[in-house]
């Protein structure tokens, strides 16, 4: 177990380093450099700017500097907003994204799991068909379409909820619904199929044979085993919520990190793009690491060995 943990940790660090290197090189592969798209600047000023941002240092020097700064969790200055640092942007706007993301993930879990379990218990009955229909729609409708539909119906036509901006609870509802639609549908499908598989197992029959009540069978025996595959989905779900928030935050004008990221793409603000990518990758990789380490605790059938060939 300890060996596995160590190995997973080391490989995560290696991945992160690889990611940083790739993103760094990609950013420097952009033709013309970060300031070339702007208005005509005199060569002297250009030189000064490059001096200021250390852009005329040799590439390896810039890379070492970048790594050194990263190790202090310093992501550098924004190229577009004078005096703003990427760190400050993340510190200000990430909590907003985090709140929205947490609400969406909770929604997805709280709706998706019961819906999937119900569909499995009522397989091929109307409840199953309705849940499957809704979840298929949830998987196939792009989130920005759903978001605009929600705004159109609940904000513009019914005037029940605010159409944009950020504030109290009522501001969270529509964006969280739009963001949660895809993972909810996916969790429902996942829970349903793994629940069906579990319900066909012998130990469920044994439990029935023993005369256990339906509720005990469901919670103690079926659901706890059926949910194991759902745990593996946590990593991809977080990644999906994260990238989904780029669009949702832009549509709802929510001042979160996702919208900042999209704006920085429009502005070609390279340090922000680079910084946010690295930050998000770090987040997802750490989350995956945690999930991988918790996973075997949930299912004693999974044994961790450091020499797992596949």
């Amino acid at each position: 177990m300890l060996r596995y943990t160590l190995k997973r940790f080391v490989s995560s660090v290696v991945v992160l380093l690889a990611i940083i290197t790739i993103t760094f090189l990609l950013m420097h592969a952009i033709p013309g450099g970060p300031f070339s798209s702007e208005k005509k600047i005199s060569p002297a000023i250009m030189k000064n700017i490059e001096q200021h941002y250390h852009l005329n240092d040799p590439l390896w020097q810039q890379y070492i500097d970048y790594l050194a700064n990263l190790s202090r969790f310093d992501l550098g200055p924004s190229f577009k907003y004078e005096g703003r640092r990427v760190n400050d942007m993340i510190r200000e706007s990430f909590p907003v994204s985090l709140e929205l993301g947490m609400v969406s993930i909770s929604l997805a879990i709280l709706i998706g799991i019961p819906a999937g379990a119900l569909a499995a218990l009522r397989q091929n009955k109307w409840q199953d068909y309705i849940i499957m229909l809704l979840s298929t729609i949830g998987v196939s409708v792009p989130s920005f379409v759903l978001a605009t539909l929600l705004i159109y119906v609940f904000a513009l036509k019914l005037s029940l909820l605010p159409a944009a901006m950020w504030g109290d609870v009522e501001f969270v509802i529509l964006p969280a619904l739009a963001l949660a639609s895809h993972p909810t549908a996916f969790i429902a499908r996942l829970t349903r199929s793994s629940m069906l598989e579990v319900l066909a197992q012998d130990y469920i029959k044994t439990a029935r044979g023993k005369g256990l009540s339906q509720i005990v069978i469901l919670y103690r025996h079926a659901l706890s085993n059926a949910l194991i595959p759902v745990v593996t989905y946590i990593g991809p779900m977080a990644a999906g919520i994260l990238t989904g928030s780029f669009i949702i935050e832009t549509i709802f004008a929510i001042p979160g990190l996702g919208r900042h990221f999209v704006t920085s793409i429009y502005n070609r603000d390279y340090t922000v793009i680079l910084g946010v990518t690295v930050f998000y990758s770090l987040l997802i990789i750490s989350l995956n690491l945690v999930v991988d380490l918790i996973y075997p605790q949930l299912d004693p059938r999974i044994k961790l060995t450091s020499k797992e060939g596949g």
Partner: protein
Amino acid sequence: MVNRQLFEPLLASDQAAVQTRPITTYGQDAWRRLKEHKLAMVGFYTVVVIMLIAVIGPWISHASYSDQNLMLANQAPSGEHWFGTDNLGRDLFIRVLYGARISLSIGIVASLINLTLGVIYGGIAGLLGGRVDRIMMGIVDVLYGIPMLLYVILLMVVLQPGLTNIFIALGIAYWLGMARIVRGQILSLKEQEYVLAARTLGASNWQILYRHLIPNSMGPIIITMTLAIPEAIFTEAFLSFIGLGVAAPMASWGVLSSEGVTSLRSYPFQLFFPAMAISITMLAFIFLGDGLRDALDPRTRR
């Protein structure tokens, strides 16, 4: 009555006595079972219709996707303009027809690149096995943990938006799943007797891979591809939304929808039609993919 005649041997030429039934190939068998799957067939025919529209639709339309007429801007759907017009007076029906061509080619080309990379990588890892396999699959496992969409975005920022670059970015980002599936298939197939037979006959690794192993892994490969196409269309829509899609005046469904989003308050139909197009295509491919999974998966083969 039992008599001697009943026990007489048949003549070799007596055809009526030879009971045969037509040999069903894997493909025929799969097609038969796909046909039993109602939703999958709905998906299949929808996909066929969408593809036909994408190929011949723009030929038979009377105007071009880029024809502007500002006098006709933002018109509601009518007999003249079935889906209405956009803010530059371009016919939205024709733009959606052209969008089908662009969105579908993005889906198909990107998943073909995935297919090629995944099959080569997974094939080599599965066939060689041992240490090579461990290292190659270790790399895939590691890459799997990375939020790929971020890197597609990064790549598009570096490469500049455009159709070819979308092909490249999507193609090289999403082959990991295919590699895993192909490798798993090959790992189990290569222990089969016919591979041993081929090897005894002196077939090289490469011949075994592409004459025996890959054709026999076709089922899961087709399923993965069917589900990769809508995924790529989806991702392209996402990229268009953040301004990294195909360049104007070309328009994929993603570009059309994101244009529609901006004018939602006044002209909701401008979002409705391209969004419907994306959703119907997604649904069709998902139905087809689910049906194919049932039809092609050897484990459920009856």
